[in-house]
């Protein structure tokens, strides 16, 4: 228990600063939501396409929550191209196109996750100038470091599956990884906001 508390204490200061271009909403919102997901995970695709718009409209747009995205890059069979996708997303965040690239990656997940042609999914979401910048950033060591930092933060927060939303309200950390029903998640977030 003490170790867990220590891990949380070490983690909170790093949670405090979102990586460039990977957050939405007011950083001073009463509830902080840190979303850990992976571009090759089918449940993450479902969350991104069906529930994330509702989370944004219910909590982020009204200023109730500050949403921060993290790549919790999976490894192993079926996730061979996960790290490449995470790196492209991190690079796209540097040119202000994080969400557009996330949308593109999730929309075409079933093809590039198998073929490994990740760039073919990413490129249409970028302009010619942005493509050049993103390709150049892919060889920048800070991009790989950023992806690794996201993973480390997830491990420190005891994220054990994707997608997981770690909600923080007044220092209390509540991880949520059940996405069978949006109403249940909303009820939990509303409860945290009422405290």
């Amino acid at each position, binding site marked *: 228990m003490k170790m867990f508390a220590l891990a949380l204490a070490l983690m909170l200061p790093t949670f405090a600063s979102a990586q460039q271009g990977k957050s939405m909403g007011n950083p001073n919102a009463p509830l902080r939501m840190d979303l850990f997901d992976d571009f090759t995970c089918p449940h993450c695709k479902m969350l991104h396409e069906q529930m994330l718009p509702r989370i944004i409209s219910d909590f982020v747009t009204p200023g109730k929550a500050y949403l921060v995205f993290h790549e919790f890059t999976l490894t192993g069979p079926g996730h061979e191209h996960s790290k490449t996708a995470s790196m492209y997303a991190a690079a796209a965040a540097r040119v202000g196109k994080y969400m557009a690239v996330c949308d593109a990656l999730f929309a075409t997940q079933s093809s590039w996750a198998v073929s490994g042609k990740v760039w073919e999914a990413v490129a249409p979401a970028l302009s010619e100038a942005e493509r050049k910048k993103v390709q150049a950033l892919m060889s920048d060591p800070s991009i790989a470091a950023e992806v690794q930092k996201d993973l480390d933060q997830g491990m420190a927060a005891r994220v054990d599956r994707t997608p997981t939303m770690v909600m923080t309200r007044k220092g209390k950390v509540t991880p949520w990884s059940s996405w*069978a*029903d949006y109403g*249940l998640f909303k009820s939990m977030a509303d409860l945290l906001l009422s405290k």
Partner: protein
Amino acid sequence: MAFSRSKILPIAVVVLRVLLGGIFIYAGYVKLVEPWQLFAAGIADYEVVPLWAAKFLAHTLPWFEVLVGLLLIVGRWLRTSSVSISLLLLVFFSLMVRAFAGGKEINCGCFGPNELISWKTLVRDGSMLAASLFVTFFAFRNRRTPV
């Protein structure tokens, strides 16, 4: 001085009753102090009951766990409480084995959130089931044994 089998068994039954009862009270308590949504989400993840049932169980099951735990410890309605706990553990254990065998990476939901189903949780709940069946057997056998 050697204890005879007839003396050891009743002591073992009482010890197991207190242990199992305590575990059930604790399991109910940790769910009651957490928001009910966390337990409802845990139940929903098993994908065996509809969402309304998961919500209903999240509100009621922790209280039932505390109640049968208390009854088992104090020895009131012993057959009812021991059968209830055995049936609960049988259901929990079956669902956990089903989820684990199906490769589901979900929380056990046994003692609050953040405990994935693993060999460890299966061995633990399996041992509790064996202990509760033992207690249940003696609760019925003692009823039939002439004093």
